């Protein structure tokens, strides 16, 4: 039987930003399977030139409406490393707490609002409010907890206001921390229910050997700074990030592609779990095992599960962080520093994977040169190659156009791509 297929998903829905899936099959042979990002680039690196370093985190937060805190933190880390600023411990803990809020918020947004409709066969999350009110309830409560945590630590849920070079401009009050702690404790049953829910969903069966890149944990599950590691055994220093990413450009897409030991690699929740499984909170690790997520897992659809596990982890870790903060002096949140010339790199694990910012600053503290490498950029090549493999497998299994379209869309969504971010 001759199979011809032409699939063209223009502006894929339920993802952040604009991308197209283009698949062409002729005579049963795969001719083309592309993941083409058609987002309009914004040229942040060019805009940064000549800007005061203290505006840089504010500007780069606007790269992404979802992981703005991550961008802010990567930017701050690059600046603070360039100027050798010692951020007070309290501020570090508060920043990590903010980070956790963002991870929780972003992952629940993806898992429930963007990915879940696929599993239930509905166009969006709204019908679930009627048909599965308990799931909608989980989504709303978990997301709210994440947003509230961001709000408390950085001043608002999107585009943080109090993240400044040297630390934080404002700390929450202890009674506020206690209040959010109670909320987080109440969310534990919710995230456990979410894990239980995922146990009942059927994750598409698709495996492609992949190299996974993440920050390298030392004692804890890593989020901000430190060495880089890959499941193929590559280890590099943070400053050496370019050797980890190796950007290049393809014609059909406005984003850049990256590669490492193989033709592509993946970052994100799955990459982190694959590389740092042993550092997960004990209960989160148990939940992962329960869901069949153990390292190294090569099914990209499992990224959704990894996100649920990370939510579980950040909720539990946030409670511990708050307990630490309650013992600390919350007025010591900002270091004085001297403006000086320098170069610095900041690597941060944001919801979708490792984010790198690098700046060169002059002695006035103005940005001379900037480079930002976004997780989705690093994933794009991998998505692209996964697509080919997925279609090949689908053809073998004699799947229909509609099934292949559906699986392809789900595949791209599973990566939780943040496209406008990747074409910043």
């Amino acid at each position: 039987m001759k199979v011809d297929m032409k699939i063209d998903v223009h502006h894929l829905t339920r993802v952040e930003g604009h991308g197209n899936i283009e698949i062409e099959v002729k005579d049963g042979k795969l001719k083309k399977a592309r993941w083409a990002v058609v987002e309009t680039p914004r040229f942040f690196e060019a805009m940064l030139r000549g800007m005061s370093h203290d505006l840089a985190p504010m500007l780069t937060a606007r790269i992404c409406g979802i992981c703005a805190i991550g961008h802010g933190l990567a930017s701050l880390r690059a600046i603070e490393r360039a100027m050798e600023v010692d951020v007070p411990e309290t501020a570090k803990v508060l920043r990590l707490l903010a980070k956790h809020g963002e991870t929780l918020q972003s992952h629940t947004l993806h898992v429930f609002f963007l990915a879940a409709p696929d599993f239930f066969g509905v166009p969006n999350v709204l019908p679930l409010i009627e048909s599965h009110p308990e799931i909608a309830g989980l989504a709303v409560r978990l997301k709210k907890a994440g947003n509230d945590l961001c709000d408390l630590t950085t001043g608002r849920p999107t585009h943080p206001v109090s993240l400044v070079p040297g630390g934080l401009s404002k700390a929450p009050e202890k009674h506020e921390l206690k209040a959010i702690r109670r909320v987080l404790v109440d969310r534990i049953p919710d995230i456990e229910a979410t894990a239980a829910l995922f146990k009942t969903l059927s994750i598409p069966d698709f495996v492609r050997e992949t190299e996974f890149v993440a920050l390298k944990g030392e004692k804890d599950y890593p989020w901000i700074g430190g060495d880089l590691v890959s499941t193929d055994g590559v280890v590099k220093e943070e400053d050496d990030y370019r050797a980890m990413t190796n950007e290049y450009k393809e014609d059909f897409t406005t984003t850049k592609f990256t590669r490492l030991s193989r033709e592509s690699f993946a970052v994100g929740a799955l990459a982190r779990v694959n590389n740092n499984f042993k550092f997960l909170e004990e209960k989160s690790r148990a939940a992962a095992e329960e869901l069949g997520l153990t390292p190294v897992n090569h099914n990209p659809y499992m990224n959704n599960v990894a996100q649920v596990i990370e939510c579980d982890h950040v909720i539990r870790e946030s409670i511990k962080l708050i307990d630490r903060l309650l013992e600390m002096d919350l007025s010591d949140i900002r270091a004085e520093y001297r403006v000086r010339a320098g170069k610095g790199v900041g690597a941060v694990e944001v919801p979708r994977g490792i984010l790198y910012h690098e700046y060169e600053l002059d002695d006035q503290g103005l940005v001379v040169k900037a480079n930002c490498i976004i997780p989705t950029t690093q994933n794009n090549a991998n998505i692209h190659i996964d697509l080919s493999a997925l279609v090949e497998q689908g053809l073998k299994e004699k799947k229909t156009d509609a099934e292949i379209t559906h699986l392809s869309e789900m595949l791209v969504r599973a990566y939780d791509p943040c496209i406008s971010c990747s074409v910043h």
Partner: protein
Amino acid sequence: MKYLGIDPEKIKIGSFDFTCCEGCQLQLANKEDTLVDFLNLLEVVNFREISSYRGEDYDIALIEGAISRQDEVERLKRIREQAKVLVALGTCACFGGVNQIKNKFEIEDVVREVYGDDPVETLPVRKISDVVKVDLEIPGCPVSKEEVEKIVVDLVTGAEINFPKYPVCVECRRKVNTCVFDLGLLCLGPITRAGCGAVCTSGKTACIGCRGPAEEANYEEFRQVLKEHGFTPREARERIDFYGGLPEMVIDES
């Protein structure tokens, strides 16, 4: 509520994003406490970011982002033809937002800086009203969900939509904040339209004017204030140009 003959009808919205970070659209899914009530007022017929359903029968088009490529111009014009009411949602849509910082540089230079010798297509950034007629502007980077809720209620009930005319300082002092000028920062609160609840200054950082100008802002005197506080023209200009919403606030070199 059938009060006064107001039998609220859901408004059919389409939400569309252009050059931006999509943070404003995302706000629509935030403020979870009232999310269900909020969504009850809307019929979402087109919202790519959260829904696979793509209807064309929307009455109100929310436009997020600025315009920076030819295909965007055409897409926007098509939406304008369809929409009864076109809303510029967020600072990028209203004023160009951070994207327009790019316009200070030569386009070729910008492209070369990021893509080297592998150029991509791009145009100088324009705000939505530079391309099509805009019926309503909701500024904010990101927009305040509270304000959006209020506006949606007004749309549903057919009431006149009002924005504060006064500057951010009013809201800032209502929060009993310390003025960040006293902390040594350069704040654009005195010339920026209120409505955000003074979020930035409440976090002890300066306002950078994402909501555009307050009515009858006193630029002349504000320039003087900046000078007397010892801020250099470069520092001032950098902040005023950040969002592109304060074109009338001109800083001269002297």
